[in-house]
């Protein structure tokens, strides 16, 4: 195939999965810059494996798994850096920027305040717990889908989910967010 044909074939395979992959990148990275880099890295890597990609029955799962592995590899690399970079999403609030503002008729100050507290509480979880609870309870991934995505046994995922919820419940009850 020519380069143009390759590009078209690639786009035809990956584009239907863009929204889900973008959200996955956000849930893994927790910030826009890193999420978009992760998304970009995935496409670069996937394009290099176009021959393999065209043969897959479920390219969406394959793409998600590659993205997860890229994220894990990137996290390991960051931990080795002597000088650590401030990542916008390690800081609460940014992910809520798309919610209605006070001028919007759908503005709900109490709800937004609750989500802000949830945002801050999520930052207090470990990466492993936060990822599981966001994939399962926010994005609607099933346990077996998370298992396929991450390679982590279902039992471990369930345990992390249970602990993550318990910790969130504890934090959000203490600050009055939950009744």
């Amino acid at each position, binding site marked *: 195939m020519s*380069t143009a044909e390759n*590009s078209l074939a690639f*786009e035809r395979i*990956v*584009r239907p999965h*863009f929204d889900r992959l*973008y*959200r996955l990148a*956000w849930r893994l990275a927790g910030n*826009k*810059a890193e999420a*978009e*880099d992760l*998304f*970009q*890295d995935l*496409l*670069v890597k*996937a*394009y290099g494996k176009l021959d393999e990609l065209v043969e897959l029955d479920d390219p969406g799962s394959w793409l998600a798994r590659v993205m997860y592995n890229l994220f894990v590899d990137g996290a390991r690399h960051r931990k080795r850096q002597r*000088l*650590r*970079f*401030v*990542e*916008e999403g*390690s*800081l*609460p*609030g*940014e*992910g*809520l*920027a*798309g919610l*209605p*503002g*006070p001028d919007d008729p759908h503005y709900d*100050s109490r*709800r*937004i305040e609750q*989500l*802000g507290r*949830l*945002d*801050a509480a999520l*930052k*207090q979880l470990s990466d492993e717990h936060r990822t599981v*609870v*966001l994939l399962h*309870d*926010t994005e609607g991934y099933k346990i077996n889908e998370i298992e396929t995505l991450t390679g982590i046994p279902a039992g471990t995922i369930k345990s992390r989910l249970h602990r993550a*919820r318990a910790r*969130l*419940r504890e934090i*959000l*009850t203490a600050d009055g*967010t*939950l*009744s």
Partner: protein
Amino acid sequence: MHDTDTDKRDRELLALLGAYPAPEPDEGFYERALARATHVGSRRQRNRWLAAGFGSALAAGLALWMIAGAFLGNPDLPQTDAPIPGITMALEEPRTVNLVFSSAAALERATLTVSLPDGVELAGFPGQREISWQTSLDAGKNVLPLTLIALTPAGGELTARLEHEHRNRTFRVRVNIG
């Protein structure tokens, strides 16, 4: 079925998690990502720690905005005479401070160094008193959100030093623990 307080909180928590938002990509992001991926030699050149969402009314509700005029394109503007802004935060309660850098021109490879007072940490960077990194600034306003956690009641002064080529500016924020 007996409805315990825990059951109720679980339902509330799940409802909250279900509503936890993720933003949409910027317009054209997918097309740009595709183009980069399919063109040889395209390499990402992104280090966008700067939030694009300045002006968000929600953010204003969540965080204290500290406006720090960098104006690196205009070195004549006064900087040091401005009163030092301050924030008051509770012990062990995360608080987001957004530093806003206004630059007259886009700057490549600027170095930003944040120094924290004793007993105050940046969320995600336990035990680190000074954090430094390179980044680029767009012309106009650039936002750096910092989430601080006070571990002791001492407080002190947070400084953010922005360096580009031979110029630099230091911004100070007084952190009071109340």
